């Protein structure tokens, strides 16, 4: 009998192996209290160091909206703007902020918690999930501000505003999946975190936060001053399958009035497939390297 067989008979596992996926997921689920507590504690401690404290949760998105509103409302006017541009912009900026914040934080979830990973034994997956949950909890008050702003701008609350609940739930799942994939990549290859700011900026400028992809690249009928154009159907097709664009369009269609924001119902399907698909892949992908996190080789 070899030592390995002996060890297995006595209930010993090989160190550096990983538990079966099913057990692992159960272990993570058992630690959901950790995920929630960690995100709450982190928010508080981040704000404690500022003299305005928890007020920043609300102040930050307001300032963001102010800056972007000024830049794109006054400094850079353009003719590819949809109606209700300010509301359009606010929704875009606020929703994108959650995506970029949780992507960046998720990427650093393992590398920034090296001391914790190296001392205690726990399923590492809770760290990226906690990072995204933290950003999600910070995102919720900004949703409140967004809705308040919409009402101030003269949009009466509508029943279909409720649709943002499933939209943001899917969006959260999507960001968790993205964070899991990125956290593993960054654990293998630290440089990933250096690329992230460029990637988020790229998506910020291409996703249609402050311009409408459909207006800019879609077909136009002839008007008095312009000839009819076909637009760029390829770009439109790509944007149909670009997840952040899907979430933005879904949220805008739920919140903004008018025909210009009605969307293809298939966006619901695409966004769900993205979210659940990326999350399932992310769980599997992250688990595959469970034994490697925290190593210094």
């Amino acid at each position, binding site marked *: 009998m070899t030592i390995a067989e002996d060890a297995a008979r006595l209930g010993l596992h090989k160190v550096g192996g990983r538990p079966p996926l099913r057990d692992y997921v159960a272990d993570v689920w058992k630690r959901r209290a950790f995920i929630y507590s960690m995100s709450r504690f982190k928010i508080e401690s981040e704000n404690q160091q500022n003299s305005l404290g928890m007020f920043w949760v609300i102040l930050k998105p307001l300032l963001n909206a102010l800056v972007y509103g000024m830049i794109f409302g006054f400094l850079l006017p353009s003719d590819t703007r949809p109606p209700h541009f300010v509301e359009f912009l606010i929704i875009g900026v606020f929703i994108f902020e959650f995506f970029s914040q949780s992507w960046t934080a998720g990427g650093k979830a393992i590398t920034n918690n090296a001391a914790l990973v190296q001392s205690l*034994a726990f399923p590492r997956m809770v760290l990226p999930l906690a990072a995204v949950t933290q950003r999600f909890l910070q995102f919720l008050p900004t949703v409140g501000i967004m809705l308040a702003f919409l009402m101030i701008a003269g949009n009466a609350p509508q029943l279909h505003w409720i649709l943002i609940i499933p939209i943001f739930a899917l969006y959260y799942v999507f960001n968790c999946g993205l964070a899991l994939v990125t956290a593993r990549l960054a654990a293998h290859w630290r440089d990933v975190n250096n690329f992230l700011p460029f990637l988020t900026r790229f998506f910020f400028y291409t996703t249609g936060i402050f311009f409408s992809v459909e207006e800019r690249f879609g077909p136009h009928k002839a008007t008095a001053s312009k000839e009819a154009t076909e637009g760029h159907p390829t770009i439109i097709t790509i944007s149909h399958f670009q997840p952040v664009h899907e979430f933005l369009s879904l949220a805008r269609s739920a919140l903004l009035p008018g025909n210009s924001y009605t969307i293809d119902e298939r966006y619901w399907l695409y966004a769900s497939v993205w979210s659940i698909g990326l999350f399932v892949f992310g769980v599997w992908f992250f688990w595959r390297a469970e034994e490697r996190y925290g190593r210094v080789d």
Partner: protein
Amino acid sequence: MAVSTDETQVQAPQPPTDRKPVVVVDDVHVEYKVFATGKRPTAADRRSNVLKGRGKQMRTVHALKGVSFTAYEQDSIGVIGTNGSGKSTLMRAIVGLTPTSRGAIYATSRPSLLGVGAALMKDLSGERNIILGGLAMGFTRDEIAANYDDIVKFSGLEKFIDLPMRAYSSGMTARLKFALASVQTHDILIVDEALAVGDRRFRARSEARIREIRDNAGTVFLVSHSMQSIKDTCSRVIWLDQGTLVMDGEPDEVINAYDTAQDQQP
């Protein structure tokens, strides 16, 4: 028991048949591949090599060279050896933080490793570190609430428990980490020099806790340069030198042999 020479097999103590093995280390080799920056060039080297650059060289450090032993429940194993003898590498390999290049390690559960240095989450207060650390180790909120006062009392940090851990001294950090990690009494705990930064009272208390863990069917590895600590807490001692296991046996015997060897060196 005799000190082995290079070639002879290390004589392990007779395995107790009634106790369950908890950690099996089977012929473990660890090799680090590191980029050496190159030694500081001498004047002659500089003349000949300066234009070629001080090339990065891949160097292999053979940190462990075939270590084997089995730890049983109720063992408290002292690990001794000079600096750089492979003690910490062995401990990290048992936790799985350092991959083995050859051989394998088997364990009943993934142990906690207490080293010197970093706080768990330095921006959070001691209190929140206890709560989160407990949740991470798989306790429920109620279990943590039930144990919380004991942990704080044991750490002796009542006055500082609401300060962020970045304000803690290294001794205070070690106290909190040890108090937290030693709650799980039936598991494997690895203490890598972490007690060395504690004061005498804390050291006495943590040694008592280690004995308690051992009596509750737990297993403790204690890496230390304090032979007194090891004599007081350990039931067995492993002596590593340059990555090989030199001796494994009764604390007094191994420590005497180690001291003799140390004295003989210039």
